[in-house]
């Protein structure tokens, strides 16, 4: 009874004999191998190679002009490195929605809270200073859709 084969059309004496075989197997497997090779090729290509971490430079003319002790950002370096995006986000909300345009930095120094006018005044090397890291970590901030980076154009004009 057990070896009788049953399906929706009735009970049969024995299972139908179907050849266990993958048709066109060699093409399929060859295709799969090629597919995986192509898909994983970037991994193989970069295996063992370290992509150098970005080194943002602070050698812009505006910073060079400052005395050594005045070469400070609006917040300490460690804070800016980790939290500049939160700082800019707070700035834009406070400036546009709150009308508060002065930022009081450490030691009571006042800065105009503006990406385009304050940040870029010193960091006039946007491509080197901003874009390099953003590209490295694959983020695309939407700042530059509206905010102008004139420094590049001025350099071209010169």
């Amino acid at each position: 009874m057990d070896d009788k084969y049953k399906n929706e059309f009735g009970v049969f004496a024995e299972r139908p004999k179907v050849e266990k075989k993958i048709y066109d197997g060699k093409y399929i497997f060859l295709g799969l191998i090629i597919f995986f090779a192509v898909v994983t090729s970037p991994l193989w290509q970069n295996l063992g190679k370290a992509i150098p971490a970005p080194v943002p430079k602070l050698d812009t003319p505006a910073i060079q002009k400052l005395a050594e002790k005045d070469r400070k950002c609006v917040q300490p370096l460690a804070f800016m490195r980790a939290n500049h995006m939160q700082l800019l986000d707070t700035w834009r909300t406070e400036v546009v929605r709150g009308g508060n345009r002065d930022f009081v930095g450490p030691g009571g120094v006042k800065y105009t809270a503006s990406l385009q006018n304050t940040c870029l005044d010193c960091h006039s090397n946007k491509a080197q200073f901003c874009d390099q890291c953003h590209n490295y970590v694959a983020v695309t901030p939407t700042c530059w859709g509206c905010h102008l980076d004139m420094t590049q154009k001025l350099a071209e004009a010169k």
Partner: protein
Amino acid sequence: MSINRREFIRIAGLSTLVGLGGKTAWELLLPGQVEAQLLPKANALAAKRWAMVVDMKKLDEATAKKCIDICHKVHNVPNLAVPNDPKVKMDPADVNRWQIKWIWSDHYHNAFPGQEHEYVQDRVQAMPFLLLCNQCNNPPCVRVCPTQATFRREDGIVMMDMHRCIGCRYCMAGCPYGSRSFNWRDPRPFIKQENPTYPTREKGVVEKCDFCAERLAKGQMPACVEVAGGALVFGDLGDAKSKVRETLKANFTIRRKPELGSNPQVYYIV
């Protein structure tokens, strides 16, 4: 080891208390350190209610053009109403649709519909009425904005937060004055000369006049008021001795479509 209900609730309550008292929780609940560090500028102009009076008796075509030009220059306002093919003349309807308006001039019958009639004085017919956002006290654009990108400041300025605008254009449908324009294309190539201290806009956002909020914050009068040579009076309605209040007291003024209830705050001496 088993735990009864009373015990469980006690432990849960105690751990909540400990959690609330934790350093992170306090930091979450307290206002951020960075927010507290932002203040208005010391020389910023402040008011209870900003308003403008346009004295059409003093405003001629040349002054109106000067006002428009300086505004567009200062705020990087593009001229999008140019045909793709320079040889083809643009349809006036398309010009209307594409142009970006912060401040512009128009005829009496367009500026004050409902008050015009066939026999309007020639002097008034010929006037280039300077039109801009009316900074309404009851702004319909603010009411319809789904993201609160447009909002009303304490001092009455109807402001736009470009970071929030999603380009739905409800505000344009809501505004009865046509004071809002949409960027149908990337505005950057259409700006004659970029002002490096002011941002541009992006494709897909709405823009309008904001009484030069960025200049008021620096202690400067709006750009158009500065070049108008007395034809535009700008000031605080909350201050009875201000020039605006005195001008309003001394002259008969009209407003655009006041019957709609938006309570516009740009007044016209005709």
